[in-house]
């Protein structure tokens, strides 16, 4: 079943046409990879999906609901969570608190609950805490839960960002270059983790530069060039494709 359907997405920045009439769909429990040279509009597209940019044209449908015009903070409630290319974790607070912020919209405490219904409020906090421990264990960060996020090594910060997104219990996870800055072993571990997530029923949309990684995990790959879709297909097709090789390796003379 189709989870996310983006139709005819188009975005201009001044004179630059970043994304041109792009159609993308993600099915339930599927990993969709997006590759393309630098500046081909991958991150812009992801920003449109997650509500940071407004598309100039076209619409985004999620679970058959139009989410194109939803304000940024409502997107996560619908079931889409994301990570950022340049890591946007909350550096000066602990790992645990980072994870708990990811659960913001699922903790139903209001201002009044905190003061007038402390028992209920504590119960909700407690269950959020247990969930946070569970997810931190999943990404092997449970031991560092009281450490400040800024003190973690880079690879673990990336995992923390994914954990924060998972805390929102999304149906679709948007990952912007999750293996960037990781060494080979870390990248392989992350790929295994992403496949584990897929088996748990999450759908993933991954932008990646690490070809090996993306080819090994994706069910479907979309190649973007200058804002337009160049190719779409299973990894093996993409690997063999002449055009794709050309934009990455240059033309053979």
């Amino acid at each position, binding site marked *: 079943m189709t989870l996310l359907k983006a139709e005819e997405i188009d975005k201009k*920045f001044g004179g630059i046409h970043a994304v041109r009439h792009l159609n993308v769909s993600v099915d339930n429990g599927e990993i969709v990879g997006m590759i393309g040279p630098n500046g081909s509009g991958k*991150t812009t597209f992801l*920003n449109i999906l997650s509500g*940071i*940019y407004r598309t100039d044209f076209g619409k985004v449908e999620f679970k058959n609901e139009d989410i194109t015009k939803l304000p940024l903070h409502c997107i996560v409630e619908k079931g889409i969570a994301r990570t*950022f290319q340049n890591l946007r974790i909350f550096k000066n607070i602990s790992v645990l608190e980072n994870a708990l912020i990811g659960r913001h919209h699922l903790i139903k405490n209001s201002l009044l609950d905190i003061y007038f219904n402390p028992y209920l409020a504590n119960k909700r906090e407690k269950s959020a805490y247990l969930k946070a421990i569970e997810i931190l264990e999943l990404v092997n960060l449970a031991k560092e839960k009281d450490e400040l996020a800024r003190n973690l090594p880079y690879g673990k910060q990336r995992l923390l960002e994914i954990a924060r997104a998972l805390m929102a219990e999304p149906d679709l996870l948007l990952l912007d270059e999750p293996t960037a800055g990781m060494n080979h072993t870390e990248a392989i571990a992350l790929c295994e983790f992403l496949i584990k997530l897929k088996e748990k029923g999450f759908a993933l949309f991954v932008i990646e530069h690490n070809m090996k990684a993306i080819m090994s995990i994706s069910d479907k790959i979309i190649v973007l060039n200058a804002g337009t879709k160049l190719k779409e297909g299973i990894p093996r097709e993409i690997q063999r494709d002449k055009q794709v090789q050309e934009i990455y390796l240059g033309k053979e003379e």
Partner: protein
Amino acid sequence: MFTEIFVVGLSLGAIYALIAIGYSMVYGILKLMNFAHGDIYAFGSFICYTLLTKYNLNPILSIIIAMIVGGILASMVERLAYRPLRGPEYRNISMISALGVAYIIQNTSENFWSRQVHFFPSIISNPFVSIFGIQIPTTQYLTLGIVIIVVVTLNLFLKYHKIGKGILCASQDIPASSLMGIPINKTISIVYLLGGTIGVIGGILYASSYNALSISMGFSGTIVAFEASVFGGIGSINGALVGGLILGLLHSIVGFYVSTAYRDVITFAILIIILLVRPKGILGRYVEEKV
């Protein structure tokens, strides 16, 4: 009557523009609200006042000395209080530091010159000139003239001189310009130097056209500079000019038709309304933030 108010407002606005230019340039390059700006130009104006009244120095010479003092003071402040706190994580902290500097300068000048209002002599003889049947003091015209000269020179400087181009680059992206070989620290110092110098011109013109000078001018100058910058779109010299003129007209019209006491209240209300409708100011352009 209205024409007189209009011309008075324009020349007041021209002074505001001079004060706002330095403020707006600093914001453009460092994204820092320089709360010490007003107190720096007030200090410079007081230097000019002392040279004129106490030492009977030649007006031109004393103005030049005051300008130099203002410029040096501004870049010194930058060196000591702002430079150690540069960078996005210190955005708020550096603003507080600026407030601290404002206090230091204000209190120092207070101990030199006391809080009372001083009589500032007119720099040029001030006969009324009648143009198109309106009686206007010459200072007002002089003010307008000076502003035009300053704005034109500055624009040419930014456009054609090497340092000026460096300033424009740095206001776009500091790390990138630094990689391109623009000496960032020097460039920023020059911006402060220019801002302080031009601010002092504004302060002296203000003092001499109203024959009054006081410490409180510093703080109200900072606020005026902010309001003018926001009206015109912060960060650009021409924006500061337009904003200053609008604010000057507004002040003189409201001051005449409504009340001087509530002039600032009304300006504030208008400011809030403008920011509600256009969070980046009237002329400020909306740029989508790159993520």
